[in-house]
């Protein structure tokens, strides 16, 4: 990708992650997921998109509409919210393989 991209490719690979949200009592309902960025390592703080939390909002998506709100506390979401974060290997860490995803997606032959 060329020398100029070196630092950003490294930064991206180190910081990139995926976030998934699911319901504690209904794992079979599947999950919502998006991408995210790891901001700090210890503790691991992650910034991700808020769209995956809409189904968990106690007050429904209406809670997102007040124009000048800058934050909503964690308890705006129901207690059944379960979150998981996954990222690639970081220095010296060993990592296993992800379980295979559902076969809902395939590469279509052109």
């Amino acid at each position, binding site marked *: *990708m060329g020398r*100029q*991209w070196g*630092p*950003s*490719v490294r*930064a*991206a690979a*180190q910081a*990139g992650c*995926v976030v*998934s949200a699911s319901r504690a009592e209904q794992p079979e309902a599947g*999950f*919502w997921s*998006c*991408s995210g*960025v790891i*901001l700090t*390592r*210890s*503790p*691991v*703080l992650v*910034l*991700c*998109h*808020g*769209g*995956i*939390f*809409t*189904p968990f909002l106690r007050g429904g*998506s209406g809670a997102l*509409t007040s*124009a000048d*709100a*800058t*934050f*909503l*506390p*964690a308890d*705006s*979401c129901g207690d059944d919210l379960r979150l998981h*974060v*996954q990222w*690639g*290997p*970081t*220095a*010296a860490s*060993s*990592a*296993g*393989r*992800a379980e*295979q*995803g*559902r076969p*809902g*997606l395939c590469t279509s032959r052109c």
Partner: protein
Amino acid sequence: ASLEPGPAAQPGGRLLEPPRAAELLLLLSCPAFRSQLARLFGSKRAEQWRFASAAPVEEVSGDEEEDQLRGLGWFALLRVQPGGEAKGEAARGLAVTVAPLGAVAKGAPLLACGSPFGAFCPDIFLNTLSRGVLSNAAGPLLLTDARCLPGTEGGGVFSARSVGALVALVAVPLCWKASEWVGLTLLCAVPPLLRAARAALTHLPDGAALAALLPPEVGAPRGLPLRDPRPPWVASAVLVEFGSVWGSGVAMAPRLVVTCRHVAPREAAKVLVHSATPKSVAIWGRVVFATQETSPYDIAVLSLEEDLDGVPMPVPAEHFQEGTAVSVVGFGVFGQACGPSVTSGILSAVVQVDDTPVMLQTTCAVHGGSSGGPLFSSPSGDLLGIVASNTRDNNTGATYPHLNFSIPITVLQPALQQYRQTGDLGGLRELDHATKPVRVVWRLQCPLPMTLRSKL
């Protein structure tokens, strides 16, 4: 821009850390981002814009869609449960450096990193990269032409220069305007989000300690300037207003602007030309020349009543090399609501007649409103051509922004020189008498009954 696996790709899938449980600390929003979103995409235009959203795909009513629009500007701060760190990992603090808002100039390269379809097959899609440029900015709402897919919402966008600093998060990966795919991704700049996080964290019992951990906005660690030098050629793009019609143009001399005939079709008519850089000005001018409808070259020349002060004049190219990195600058998509947008790509074809280039094609995203704007060589900044159209399939109504057509500047330059030096329009009038082979090349441009029509 293309999706490429990151450096850690291993044959047979990526190595992954096992998923780690996390807790939601805060849902965050940036009011300035959301107000820009509403300004550019909201109110009566809402019916024109469609967005890919991270929520499961379902039919939504008008109200819910409005809600979805407002919900687009929300992000979340999470804390991963401790435990499971590899030895030595705990010792490392910041995972990213953050670029201050405004540090990256329009046209500067960006790298988006996200996982298409989120956590669905991360061993295949985790941290997929896509390259583009900063296409436009309205406060903390940024646009890039790096292509992102659903699931990459929340992914990081990094500056391509020396430090690889985090610039923004993906807010909306795909958007359609009046069912035309725009090919631009909406981003939310990170600094305002982190500021909102620091303020909100004070409401949590251990918030102050967490706030202190968040990455500050920094320049390059070794003091190197982070701000990309703005490519000077961005400033030579102007907006041309002719009655209720507007399009783009390029300043060739302090009082000479070139645009497309279908933007300013009538000779002697008055036009208003807006330039945004170095300062916002609007100058009246007149159409001194416009090709005939039947000419394959969709060109008009404007003479201004005042100088465009401080606007750098582009250097016309003399040669074209297919594969060259190129940039288009134009007022498509947002018109006057934003300054010009920059999109990047390559010169995908140079069509010649008798060894003379008569048409250029690029892979940049070109939208309605961009016609008349300049096509530049990204490495040299030389002006390659005048954007005339993108592609539309009249049978399906689909538009293809990334297949577009420009008039080589070499076709225009001699006649423009003659007009500038002598005021003689003779050379320009020749454009109405292009040879038949040239007409054949540009035949999709002319309105033919019941055949494919290509016009912005």
